[in-house]
């Protein structure tokens, strides 16, 4: 307590120094006078009285000095003094300072930026109030080949009624609806949720109110909550939007509030509505059908309940239902239910990549740190005389050590400040990159934690890079003054230290270059994968028909027929087609089991991806037809039902037989579908993913309401997009088109994440290479300048310039080689971490290793070449005289 009080007073003692000094002087003066008066009273002469008093008081200045030390905090005062001196030294060496600060800024900035991502995505708790208690509930039959099937309404009601582990079980699904009442009809992605969905997440609306239990009662007035992004994007953040009404699904919907900016999972939605407002979800048939599963479920676990307990609770409920409804859950559908932590679900895709990037940034910092240490060491040589003078004037070793450390602290602080500026610039790019992995990307900011992290990094860097140089100076400088020749040869251990730093820079650069090289090779391989279709000159856009207007199969079929006929005749259009999904877009098809005619169906049934397409789909995407025929306009419900399979399915299910003419059934033999053709395999899920068994069926037989147009054009596809949309309006002015993009764009997006990862790692590796090369060059230049005399002697006794050149180069080559060998060993051990991120490239890809080794060796040798050539040009007469 009293020490704390004293500390505060002493901190205060750092200010108003002059006044306090004056007071002390007065106090001592009065002390002296009183003593003299006493002495006079005891009979001394005035001179003697004064002399005795002064002797007794001792040195006034040293009294004042120790008084001052006690008054303030000498430690802090010295620090401030050191800071001032350090700043002066750094200003006097602008070249050194600029290089060191820039190097550190790059290293620290990279770390701050990546740490801000790791902190936001992996470290911080979820931004929902109940984050740690939230789980994603899944249902499926993994043992029967259905990893995730979703929930039907009766199933959700069962779970809700019977569970003992949850405070809330809320449902969710997402659909596209058309919102009318603005200038143009707008397709809005709509989250359909239980009324207490946001309460379970602990999300309070930014404006207006959240859903209430009444909003989900059958027949309640329809209400909407807007997502923050949609509100900003479409309404410019206008607060008066609350209480406005819009028409959706032929009903008036009232906006009751706006949600705060939070990550949305599993989809980014524009608006949210209660389940009763969704025409699909509130359909009585849908609500009664236990097998009609289209919902997702989230759970808020009771406090203290673990994910494992919740899982066994859920599983017990569905096994119970299996006993009650054996026809819904046959043995071929071995049902199970389980819970997964929402936090892990949100971030699992990002984890490996982000940690690899953090590691890479750490390596860059390590190299930067080694480089600055080397610069510091080099500077120490030049400062030996200054340090020796200061030591001779009475500066203790520790005092000098502290001074040097303060200087290096100043340096890394400046580096950190500049690095933060770099990070600030880079973060915008990082957010859009990370958004490809996790919805938490929006939480990335340069916040207090990141600033603290940056400061901590700066302190550690200054301790590491500064103390090496400072310790080194302690070994060498004191007592060097009288030797006169400060430009003496460098001590052996100092040279060893510097060589060690160079070797480690080369080794770590090698690691980083290997990482980047592997990612790049992997990306190039991905780029050259044959997707099975031609994405060039294909325009796509998504249509979601108004459910209430196009409420029968016939109406929908008529719309599609009319639209495709109209588009076919447009100038610039080679062929127009449609499909419920298309390759690489990341939409799930319908996975279904089916029966093959003539085979035993008692066993578990084969499963295939069913894709709904129009005639001309294969032609528009240039997917080759190997057997049989394409769909035609005649393949309608009144004609025999037909299907086309891909090659993988043909081989898988029929082996060497020709599948054309064979029949399958999706309703256990009640109706049969005849296979009329075999088409080429297409990479549907990603260029790095396997091809699955695909069964195409005509849209005319299943006219779904959501269709993507695929238009092969003879011109740049986006250039006719506007005209195509106009054609749609001509048929139905209330029908919006969304996600207008070229198929090329879709393909590029599908590999954007690996491309950006490769780019980022590449950037780090290039930084590392540049810093390391500069470091090698710098050290060699220093070594040459210090060996000028020796080189002069060598030349005087007959060495050829070429031999000098070779001598210096081989010195660099030895260091580089040792570094490469160490880096190689490290890389063999470390690149295993990348395995999950690589496509068709092994973590020890020989080509990458050889290539990277060559690049690094060439870079290092060219960095050595400049000083080596200077050495070779040394004029022996000048060199010999320079001592």
């Amino acid at each position, binding site marked *: 307590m009293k020490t704390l009080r004293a500390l505060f*007073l002493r901190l205060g003692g750092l200010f108003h120094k002059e006044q306090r000094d004056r007071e*002390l002087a007065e106090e001592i003066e*009065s002390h002296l006078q009183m003593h003299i008066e006493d002495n006079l009273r005891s009979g001394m002469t005035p001179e003697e009285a004064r002399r005795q008093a002064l002797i007794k008081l001792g040195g006034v200045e040293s009294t004042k000095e120790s008084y001052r030390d006690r008054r303030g905090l000498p430690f802090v005062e010295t620090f401030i003094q050191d800071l001032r001196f350090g700043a002066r030294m750094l200003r006097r060496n602008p070249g050194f300072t600029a290089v060191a600060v820039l190097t550190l800024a790059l290293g620290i900035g990279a770390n701050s930026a990546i740490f801000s991502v790791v902190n936001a995505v992996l470290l911080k708790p979820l931004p929902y109030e109940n984050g740690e208690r939230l789980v994603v509930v899944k249902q499926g039959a993994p043992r029967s080949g259905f990893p995730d099937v979703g929930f039907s309404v009766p199933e959700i009601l069962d779970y809700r009624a019977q569970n003992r582990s949850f405070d809330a079980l809320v449902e969710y699904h997402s659909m596209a609806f058309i919102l009318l009442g603005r200038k143009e009809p707008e397709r809005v992605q709509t989250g359909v949720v239980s009324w207490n969905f946001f309460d379970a997440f602990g999300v309070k609306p930014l404006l207006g109110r959240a859903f209430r239990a009444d909003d989900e009662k059958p027949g309640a007035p329809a209400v909407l909550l807007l997502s923050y992004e949609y509100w900003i994007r479409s309404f410019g953040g206008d607060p008066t939007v609350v209480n406005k009404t819009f028409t959706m699904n032929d009903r008036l919907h009232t906006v009751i509030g706006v949600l705060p900016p939070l990550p949305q999972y599993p989809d980014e939605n524009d608006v949210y509505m209660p389940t009763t407002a969704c025409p699909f979800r509130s359909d009585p048939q849908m609500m009664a059908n236990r097998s009609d599963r289209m919902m997702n479920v989230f759970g808020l676990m009771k406090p203290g309940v673990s994910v494992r307990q919740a899982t066994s609770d859920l599983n017990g409920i569905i096994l119970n239902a299996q006993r009650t409804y054996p026809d819904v859950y046959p043995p071929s559908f071995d049902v199970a239910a389980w819970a997964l932590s929402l936090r892990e679900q949100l971030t699992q895709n990002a984890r490996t990549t982000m940690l690899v990037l953090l590691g890479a940034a750490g390596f860059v910092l390590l190299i930067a740190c080694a480089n600055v240490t080397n610069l510091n060491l080099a500077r120490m040589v030049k400062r030996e005389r200054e340090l020796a003078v200061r030591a001779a004037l009475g500066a203790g070793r520790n005092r000098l050590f502290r001074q040097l450390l303060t200087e290096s602290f100043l340096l890394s602080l400046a580096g950190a400040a500049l690095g933060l500026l770099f990070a600030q610039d880079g973060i915008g790019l990082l957010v859009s990159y990370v958004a490809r992995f996790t919805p938490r990307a929006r939480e990335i900011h340069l916040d207090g934690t990141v600033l603290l992290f940056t400061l901590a990094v700066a302190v550690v860097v200054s301790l590491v890079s500064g103390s090496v140089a400072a310790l080194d100076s302690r070994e060498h400088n004191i007592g060097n003054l009288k030797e006169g020749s400060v430009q003496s040869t460098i001590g052996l251990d100092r040279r060893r230290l510097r060589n060690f730093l160079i070797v480690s820079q080369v080794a770590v650069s090698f690691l980083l270059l290997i990482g980047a090289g592997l990612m790049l090779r992997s990306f190039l391989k991905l780029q050259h994968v044959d997707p099975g279709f031609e994405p060039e000159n294909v325009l796509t856009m998504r249509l979601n028909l108004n459910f209430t207007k196009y409420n029968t199969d016939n109406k929908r079929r008529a719309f599609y027929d009319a639209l495709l006929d109209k588009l076919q005749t447009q100038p610039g259009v080679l062929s127009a087609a449609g499909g419920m999904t298309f390759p690489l877009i990341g939409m799930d098809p319908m996975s279904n089991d089916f029966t093959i005619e003539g085979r035993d169906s008692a066993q578990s049934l084969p499963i295939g991806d069913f894709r709904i397409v129009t005639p001309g789909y294969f032609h528009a995407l240039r997917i080759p037809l190997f057997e049989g025929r394409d769909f035609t306009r005649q393949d309608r419900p009144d004609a025999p039902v037909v299907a086309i399979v891909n090659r993988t399915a043909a081989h898988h299910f029929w082996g060497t037989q020709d599948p054309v003419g064979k029949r399958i059934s999706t309703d256990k033999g009640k109706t049969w579908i005849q296979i009329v053709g075999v088409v080429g395999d297409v990479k549907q899920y990603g260029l790095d993913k396997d091809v699955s068994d695909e069964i195409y069926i005509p849209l005319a037989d299943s006219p779904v309401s959501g269709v993507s147009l695929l238009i092969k054009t003879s011109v740049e596809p986006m250039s006719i997009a506007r005209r195509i949309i106009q054609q749609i309006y001509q048929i139905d002015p209330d029908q919006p088109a969304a996600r207008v993009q070229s198929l090329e764009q879709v393909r590029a997006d599908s590999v954007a994440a690996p491309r950006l990862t490769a780019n980022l790692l590449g950037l780090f590796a290039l930084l590392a290479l540049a810093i390391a090369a500069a470091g090698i060059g710098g050290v060699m230049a220093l070594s040459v300048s210090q060996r000028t005399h020796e080189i002069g002697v060598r030349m005087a006794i007959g060495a050829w310039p070429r031999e000098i050149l070779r001598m210096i180069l081989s010195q660099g080559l030895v260091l580089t080689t040792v570094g490469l060998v160490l880096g190689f060993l490290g890389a063999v051990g470390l690149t295993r971490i990348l395995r999950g991120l690589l496509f068709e490239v092994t973590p020890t890809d020989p080509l990458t290793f050889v290539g990277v080794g060559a690049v690094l060796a060439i870079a290092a040798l060219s960095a050595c070449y400049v000083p080596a050539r200077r050495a070779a040009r040394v004029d022996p007469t000048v060199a010999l005289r320079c001592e």
Partner: protein
Amino acid sequence: MTDKADVWQGTLALMVLKTLETMGALHGYGIARRIEQTSGELLSVNYGTLYPALLKLEQEGFIASEWGVSDNNRKAKYYKLTRTGRKQLEKEAQDWQQTTAILARFLSPSEES
């Protein structure tokens, strides 16, 4: 001078506190003189160490200071004991007595052996 013992660190603070308790408010020179007199001129206070010691006591809140005028009309800084200083004095005096008692027992000729 040389035969006089210097006041050793740590006890100076205790002596200052005791002096202020006995004498009331007093200036630096007065404190030093009083300590020397009380010791029967056996101790010599190094005036140079006195002022930092006074400052330390003030920072710790045991004494307070203010400018005043001395007997012979000289401006001087007067120190006086605070309430916490009085408690501290009590405690330190007790500690000191205990220490000396223990030491005395060590140093006195043993009676049992």
